[in-house]
């Protein structure tokens, strides 16, 4: 048991150290990007858009940007690490070890969660100065941040396993992750959408992550947070089972 934990902990450490060594690119840059979103959208839309009666648009936007950063960076960490290791061939150093598919899965996802949370926290720290934020239900903030990071870390792992070229990974990111993120209510409440798109948004699991996360701040949400946490948890379990199955079968890793 001790051996299992050592190998697993080493892989978590390696995956975390990997992004930390290039923190300018992996941490500072996404924080700056989120800050620019806040400055531009906040400046343009503040006073023109009212989502909740007692919450300014900038305050509404901040949790969305924090969660978006958590999700995008968790995805980027596991997916980029895996695809780089596959293409350069150094994934062999992990595949030759006694690490089980469970340990490999958990290590990649945990490291992705660490990066997502670190960047999300950084975004929160630099944007929180621009609006008054409340923390009505902080436990929900933590729960949805962790679940969201785990889901996107797992999606990144699946994308990294599936992709054999950088452009395949880019397609996964640009045609799946980005639309799901931007159409999840980061910048707006889905109740402002026409009925068709409102229905479509309810099929987007990212919407529940952001809506539930925002509930932790304002105590208001489009969907009951218990419903959101159930949907998000079920989505995580389904994705985790898929990722573990891919790792166990050696799909595109062990030929």
């Amino acid at each position, binding site marked *: 048991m*001790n*051996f*299992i934990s*050592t*190998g697993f*902990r*080493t*892989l978590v*450490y*390696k995956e975390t*150290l*990997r992004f930390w*060594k*290039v923190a300018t690119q992996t941490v500072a840059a996404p924080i700056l990007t989120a800050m620019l979103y806040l400055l531009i959208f906040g400046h343009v839309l503040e006073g023109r858009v009212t989502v909740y009666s007692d919450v300014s648009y900038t305050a509404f936007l901040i949790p969305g940007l924090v969660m978006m950063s958590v999700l995008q960076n968790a995805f980027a960490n596991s997916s980029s690490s895996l695809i780089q*290791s596959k293409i*350069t*061939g*150094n994934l*062999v*150093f*992990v*595949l*030759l*070890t*006694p*690490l*089980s598919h469970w340990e490999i899965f958990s290590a990649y996802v945990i490291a992705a969660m660490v990066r997502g949370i670190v960047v999300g926290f950084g975004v929160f720290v630099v944007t929180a100065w621009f609006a008054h934020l409340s923390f009505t239900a902080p436990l929900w903030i933590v729960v949805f941040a962790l679940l969201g990071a785990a889901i996107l870390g797992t999606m990144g792992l699946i994308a990294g396993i599936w992709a054999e070229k950088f452009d395949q990974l880019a397609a996964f990111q640009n045609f799946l992750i980005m639309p799901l993120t931007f159409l999840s209510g980061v910048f707006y409440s889905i109740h402002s959408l026409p009925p068709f798109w409102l229905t479509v948004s309810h099929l987007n699991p990212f919407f529940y992550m952001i809506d539930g996360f925002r509930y932790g701040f304002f105590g208001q949400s489009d969907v009951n947070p218990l419903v959101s946490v159930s949907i998000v948890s079920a989505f995580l379990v389904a994705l985790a089972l898929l990722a573990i199955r891919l790792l166990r079968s*050696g799909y595109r890793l*062990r*030929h």
Partner: protein
Amino acid sequence: MTAIQISNVEKRYKSLQALGGVSLSIEEGEFFGLLGPNGAGKTTLISIIAGLIRPDAGKVTIHGHDVTGDFRAARKKLGVVPQELVFDPFFTVRETLRLQSGYFGLPNNDAWIDEVMHNLDLTNKADVNMRALSGGMKRRVLVAQALVHKPPVIVLDEPTAGVDVELRQTLWKFISRLNREGHTVVLTTHYLEEAQAMCKRVAMLKSGKVVALDTMASLIRRISGSQLTVNLAAGDLPADMRHLVTHPEVSEHGKKYSLRVNEYAEVETLLARLRESGAVIDEMQLQQADLEDIFLQIMDKGTV
């Protein structure tokens, strides 16, 4: 005890039969050579041993542990030096080795890591990023990574491809030491003189099948390819010996023939026949076949 047991392993890539029922048994403490031309299936076989490729049929065990079913125990016993020059550009040499050691459950392994680096002349590169190393240095790190958990079985897939003489000498000195200490070593190489110098037993693969499996000494003794070169001062080669000639030439002092000899015992018979025919031998030389002759002969014939 058997270090590696390979039983009827098959692997097919679409229409290509990469391995067609390979069976081998490598004993503990052996220095074993796996030889064959490009595309013979050597790397596929090594990858199956390492768990990087799943066989379509058959079974491989390392120290009795199935590489698929009991992969944890099997991989702990195995160190593999891959053929490709791969590295992780994010880390220094020491970080790379510490991480690799940690994967195998050895977090505090600096004494052995230092010894491996010393033996591979890597000590002064310990804190250098992998990207900054030359190809030869990267190859040394690959070897160090394979040895970092002190595996009883070491597999080296073309470890000296494209490296300088100094590294070869350093590497073989260290690997020989490990072999003397009881580690089993499996080597694939295109440098047949290396295989001849290092390996006690070899298997030759051709088109995914084992076409020769024997000790080095026995292979060289058993397989035709030794040559008896005679320089005749008088007389000529009798007609019934002409089919043995591999290289006829006219020498300064007479006629010179190189004759194929299958067994050492044949030499006496040939000399007696030459004397009977009236030929006078001025000079004589017996050249033993080397691994390259044997390799070429086996690859031509397809089997022993």
